[in-house]
C-alpha cells in the first residue's frame, strides 16, 4: 500500500534565535557608542 507523507509545518522546534537576529545584535553592539559628558551618558549609534 502506498504511504502518504504529509508535511507538518508545526513540527519544527524553535531551539535558537535566528542567525539574522544574532547578526543584528552584533552589528548593534559594534555601532553603539556611549559618550560621557559632564557626568551624563549619551548613546550614539554609528549606523
Amino acid at each position, binding site marked *: 500500500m502506498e504511504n502518504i507523507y504529509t508535511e507538518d509545518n508545526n513540527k519544527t522546534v524553535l531551539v*535558537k*534565535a535566528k542567525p539574522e537576529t*544574532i547578526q543584528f545584535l552584533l552589528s548593534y553592539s*559594534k555601532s553603539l557608542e*556611549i559618550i560621557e559628558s559632564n557626568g551624563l551618558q549619551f548613546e550614539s549609534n554609528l549606523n
Partner: protein
Amino acid sequence: MVVQIEDSQLVKQYIQGDERAIEALINRHNSRLTGFIYSKVGDRELTEDIFQDTFMKVIRTLKKGAYNEEGKFLPWVMRIAHNLVIDHFRKHNRMPMYNSKESYNIFSLLGDDKLNAEKQLIKEQIDSDLLKMIKELPEDQQEVLEMRIYKDMSFKEISDNTGVSINTALGRMRYALINLRKLVEANSIVLTN
C-alpha cells in the same frame, strides 16, 4: 581539552572592547534564553523580538558600565527577558486579538482572568509568608531554591554558578523543600488560594 571561558571573563573582555566576547555570550546562551522566552510567550516571532530586545539591553548596560552582577550573567539576562515578557503582556493583555474566521462567542472576549480583590490579597499573603519562610532557610539552600524556582535555572547552571557539584545542588534543593514543608507545618500556614 576544551577550556570554556567563564561568563564573567567574557563580560570583562566585552567591557574592555572585545566584540567577539558578546558573540560568544549570545551564542552560549542562545538556546537557553530562546527556550525560556518561548515557554512564556508561545510565539516564535515574539520570542525572536524579546530575545533581541533582551540582548540590546544587555549590550547597552554593559557598554555604559552599569553591570555589577559579576559571575551571575545568565540569571541577570533571564531577569531582563522575564521583565520584557511581563511588559509585553501588560501592553497586550487588554486587547485580545482573534484571528480565527470561525464564529466565536463575543462574551469570551469580555472575561477577566485577573484575580479578584480577595484572591489577590490571599495571593499576596501567601507570597509574603513563603518569602519569610525561605529567608529562614540556611543560606546555601536559599540560594539554590531561588535560582531554581525564581530564576528558572537548571541544576547544571546552578552548579556552574555556585561552584558546587550538581548532586550537591540537588541535595540542597531537596533539603530546602523538606525544611520549607517543616516550616509550613510548624507555623500552621495554609499555602492555597
